[in-house]
């Protein structure tokens, strides 16, 4: 669906050139939710803006839904943009228009007749759950509702691709989750390809199928979300994964407990995919003469399986056998304290 081929974006500046995007190659498939994560200044914003021609690459080519957006201009580019919608961090709604008029705007641009515009807008208002608010102005809406209008507006022209430019970064956690659920729903229902950029691993974990990690204009790591969670290669990726897997307080808790437990072992178990849902602990207690204390655990569902960590304390006569059993399972086992 989207081919990004050896793309570079170089800005001239006083202190030499700035490579905002440096030799990026990406393939994004039809119907996929693809996430690009990076800290601010990593170049992800420039990258996503090249997908609808708001930025033109200095080198390389970008093809989206069969349009070579890095090359076409004028009316052909405008036509292509009707198939590549975008939603924004700050929503970018027209304050002078009501919810319904905002959603109708892309249809006015496409030259759709008034009656059809109204029909389509009503459908979309229902789809994003804004019934009863169609005649409200953006200033009368909450942040989450504004983004719902943004999404409805983006869907009005029946696009093939939806670009999300930090679409949840201005929202509170609860609203973020509601908007992300809506995006997944749209992706499944309409088969829409979604590309999103974010600095929150939570967003990637929750809705993306594949992810690319960007640093200094380069894609340093990419692949299915579950794999990246399982084996993060780069330092930056590990930091992002830690954002969702290992809360800050875990380290403190563990250190505290290490002092508290005089005997037995403390083990960290890592679950990935299917294993995360198997009753390994139950098997463990039933098969061996041991006591198991669960210290801390967290399971994070992703779009292609779950990922979780569990800290347990093992003690008893068959401790060694129990450890061997754990190591024979398809989970990662790390003994923190013998």
């Amino acid at each position: 669906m989207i081919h990004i081929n050896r793309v570079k974006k170089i800005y001239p500046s006083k202190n030499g050139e700035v490579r905002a995007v440096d030799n990026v190659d990406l393939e994004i498939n039809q119907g996929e939710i693809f996430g690009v994560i990076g800290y601010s200044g990593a170049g992800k914003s420039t990258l996503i803006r090249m997908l609808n021609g708001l930025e033109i690459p200095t080198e390389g080519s970008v093809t989206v839904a069969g349009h070579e957006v890095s090359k076409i201009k004028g009316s052909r580019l405008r036509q292509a943009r009707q198939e590549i919608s975008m939603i924004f961090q700050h929503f970018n709604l027209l304050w002078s228009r009501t919810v319904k008029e905002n959603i109708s705007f892309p249809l006015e641009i496409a030259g759709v007749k008034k009656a059809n515009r109204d029909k389509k807008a009503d459908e979309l208002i229902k789809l994003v759950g804004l019934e009863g608010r169609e005649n409200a102005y953006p200033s009368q809406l909450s942040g989450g509702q504004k983004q719902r209008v943004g999404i409805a507006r983006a869907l009005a022209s029946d696009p093939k691709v939806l670009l999300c430019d930090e679409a949840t970064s201005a929202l509170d956690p609860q609203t973020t989750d509601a908007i992300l659920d809506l995006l997944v729903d749209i992706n499944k229902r309409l088969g829409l390809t979604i590309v999103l950029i974010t600095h929150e691993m939570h967003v990637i974990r929750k809705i993306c199928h594949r992810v690319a990690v960007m640093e200094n204009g380069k894609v340093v790591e990419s692949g299915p979300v579950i794999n990246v969670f399982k084996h993060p290669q780069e330092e930056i990726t590990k930091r992002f994964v830690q954002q969702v897997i290992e809360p800050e307080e875990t380290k403190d808790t563990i250190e505290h407990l290490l002092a508290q437990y005089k005997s037995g072992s403390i083990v960290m178990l890592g679950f990935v995919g299917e294993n995360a849902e198997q009753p390994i602990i139950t098997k463990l207690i039933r098969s061996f003469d041991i006591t198991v204390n669960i210290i801390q655990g967290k399971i994070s569902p992703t779009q292609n399986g779950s990922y979780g960590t569990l800290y347990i304390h093992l003690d008893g006569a068959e401790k060694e056998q129990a450890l061997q059993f754990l190591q024979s399972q398809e989970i990662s086992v790390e003994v923190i304290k013998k």
Partner: protein
Amino acid sequence: MTHLFPNVDWEKMWLATQETLYMTGISIVATFILGLLLGVILFLTAKGNMWSNPAINKIISAVVNIFRSIPFIILIVLLIPLTMILVGSMIGVNAALPALIIGAAPFYARLVEIGLREVDKGVIEAAKSMGAKPATIIFKVLLPESMPALVSGITVTTIALVGSTAMAGVIGAGGLGNLAYLEGFQRSQSDVTLVATIIILIIVFIIQFIGDYITAKLDKR
């Protein structure tokens, strides 16, 4: 009434009021169109905008600044040749129009430019990302989104124009200014000057009231 204002000829006063309203009305319509046009071009040709063009921007900006800084009374004199060509006379209400419009339009153009600069850049980008044509962006985004500023700008300009019509009256254009000057000042009939001034004040208050009302009504932010 005749006791309070012995020298006021109410029929003449009414006629002068109509002349003032006529001059203000015609020139404000022309100022609105011309100012809007210049303001939009000034905005769009500025650096980083849709039709970014430093040369055109500088030329229009210079012309606007020149006409904005010439005192109105001098502008009328300078424009005598043009007025003679356009209107064919230097006396009467129509003779004031070219100077009124050329004096007010650059002023309004700057207000339009400021109003357009206040439009959220993100909204313009959103329209672009939807595949909007430049004309669509101008008429469906830039102008509606800056409408309160455009209306309050035209209110300020109209009030300035009422003042200018009075000045134009002094050199023979008619209207309340002309009456106040000829009948009031030169014949030492201060009651005529007073009544003419009060009428001008009332006109200004009404314009301000209407302008504020429409601005508030339009602003949904």
